[in-house]
């Protein structure tokens, strides 16, 4: 008989005379539909329409045959639906452009996130003189307008023989995104209570193992958010892809899109819209993942509460 002799002898005390009351009898506060609210909703609907319409238009255009586009101009509903544009564009650009974009994006993301997280951990958990200065210095790299260093970067890349190579793009994207990765991960590392790591140390784990087994699993959200930002950056990056690579070589999807705009036949709207939608797709999917992920799993409390 430990916690309470009561629990073992009898249930909670009840009042004999209380009759059951239907919970539905009780009122809840309800939001009121005022004119203000309706007006606000109207404004929001208009904005949503303005933003979504271009995407709709792209979709419509991408499934129309090129002939229909050139003759009939813009319409609200396709005369006939064909996937020829998609077939053509995928056949032409899957290799190498789309693949290059994927590889450059994924590899640079992995590298930037891994290195950025390690840097963030070091900066956050270890105290040393000038700590904040080092952190700021790293961040300041990102404050420089990329175009200012475009030419020097090109020269350097050429001089080490990596011109028009995927490796160059990967390295460049990694380096560009390290400061951002470090900065974002730093606040996520801060949100992991240090007591958890201390508990693991006392439990017999060496510091690096603690990092891998305790900290990293709890940085899932931060890693996801950072990775998505970095991948989207790499996927959409145009300036350096244009300068360093060539279409058909290590060129990426944005480069391929650009060529469609400058073909001798004028702008090929159909294939361009199709390729554009293909370009947008991963970004949309990633964004949806972020929203789902964040709304479900941000509560990581290991500390009581």
């Amino acid at each position, binding site marked *: 008989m430990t916690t309470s002799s009561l629990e073992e002898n*009898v249930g909670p*005390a009840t009042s004999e005379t209380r009759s059951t009351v239907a919970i539905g009898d009780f009122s809840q506060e309800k939001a009121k539909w005022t004119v203000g609210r309706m007006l606000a909703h109207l404004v929001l609907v208009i904005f949503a329409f303005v933003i979504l319409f271009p995407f709709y238009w792209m979709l419509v255009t991408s499934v129309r045959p090129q002939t229909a586009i050139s003759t009939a101009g813009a319409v609200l509903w396709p005369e006939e639906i064909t996937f020829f544009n998609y077939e053509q564009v995928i056949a032409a650009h899957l290799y190498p452009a789309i693949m290059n974009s994927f590889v450059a994006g994924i590899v640079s993301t992995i590298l930037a996130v891994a290195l950025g997280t390690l840097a963030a951990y070091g900066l956050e958990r270890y105290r040393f003189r000038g700590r904040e200065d080092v952190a700021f210095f790293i961040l300041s790299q990102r404050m420089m307008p990329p175009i200012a260093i475009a030419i020097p970067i090109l020269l350097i890349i050429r001089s080490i023989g990596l011109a028009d190579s995927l490796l160059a793009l990967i390295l460049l994207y990694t380096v560009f995104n390290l400061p951002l990765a470090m900065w974002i991960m730093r606040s996520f590392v801060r949100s992991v209570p240090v007591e958890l790591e201390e508990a693991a140390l006392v439990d017999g784990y060496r510091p690096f193992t603690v990092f891998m087994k305790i900290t990293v699993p709890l940085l899932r959200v931060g890693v996801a958010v950072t990775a998505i930002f970095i991948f989207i950056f790499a996927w959409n990056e145009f300036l350096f892809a244009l300068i360093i690579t060539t279409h058909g070589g290590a060129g990426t999807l944005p480069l391929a899109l650009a060529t469609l705009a400058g073909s001798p036949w004028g702008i090929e709207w159909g294939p361009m819209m199709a390729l554009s939608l293909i370009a947008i797709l991963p970004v949309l999917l990633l964004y949806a993942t972020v929203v789902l992920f964040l709304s479900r799993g941000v509560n990581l409390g290991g500390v009581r509460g």
Partner: protein
Amino acid sequence: MNEGNGNEVVKVEDVHKVYSTSSGPLHAVRGVSFECRLGETLAVLGPSGSGKSSLMRMIAGLEHISGGRISIDGTVINDVPPERRNVSLAFENYALYPSITVRKNLEFPLVNLGQFSRQEIDKRVQDIAASFRLLEVLDRKPVELSGGHSQMVSLGRALIKPASVHILDEPLSHLDLQFRNEVVAKLRTMQRERNLSMILITHDQEEALELSDRVIVINDGQFQQLGTPKEIVSAPANLFVADFVGEPPMNLLRSRSDGKAGTGLVTEGGTKLEAAIDIGADSRDRDLLIGIRPTDLFVANGASREHTFQDELPLNMLEELGEVTILTLDFEGLPLRVVLPSREKADTAGVRVKIGYRPESLHVFDRQTGLRLGS
């Protein structure tokens, strides 16, 4: 302290609170009624999850009242917003304004009311700060304060402004013991001088007993008992109150009534006990629990008129805890605790001890309903 009907500052009538949660409606407060009279301190006592916080928030106006009525100074305030209810609230987790000093935190309620001169405000702040030992921290910011100081600022801020009722959420919980006594004395003095009405919300029965004039005990959203501290301790209305109030908790012995009249009781193991009331008066056949507080038991010293447990009980554990000594004995297979004041030298050297009791200190409860018998 001050009593008298028609003197009700806060009246809670059949109040319910239902929360909509993701797993369905939660009926947190179920038909609780009580009143707080002018000049008295009423404690609302219950464990976590009992609904006391919901009650507090409904009185203060921070939660919508799902059912029933709450009146302050005779006016029903169900739909009155918090700032017009004339209530002040001291939060348990302080809720101090972090960007301003302690002085400005204390002034805030008065400045807001707009009816006091600068001199008057300064004087009141000085008085409150002096009462609650805040004079040295008046110009600090809340983040620099210790838990005890923060709690005093929260308390001071609630008491500085005149209000129909002051609601205090666990006001003593973060204070060290000596300071606690000072605050109790201070609150009582202020109550006397200004005829304050206070509602105390707490899960700590010691806090409720030492600071209130009357206590309402609730559990699981339901009313358990309303009475003076003395009544709650000496005549608990049901098993919950009997077990909740008192440390160590009341010993409960299983017994069965055969419906025969008389004051004799028999435990399941056959021990005969003598109660002070006639249990069998309504001649019902039922399961009982006999309650005896550890502090109402003593080591028998052989006096002739003493009531004792007929057998000597084996001693399992002896704890010397300074002011008291706690014996844990084996009674019919279950632990029976006896608390002895350590200044009384009692013969506890042996392995078996004879225990005495007074019939008036036996409480008898119906095991099914949990209710007290024979009051």
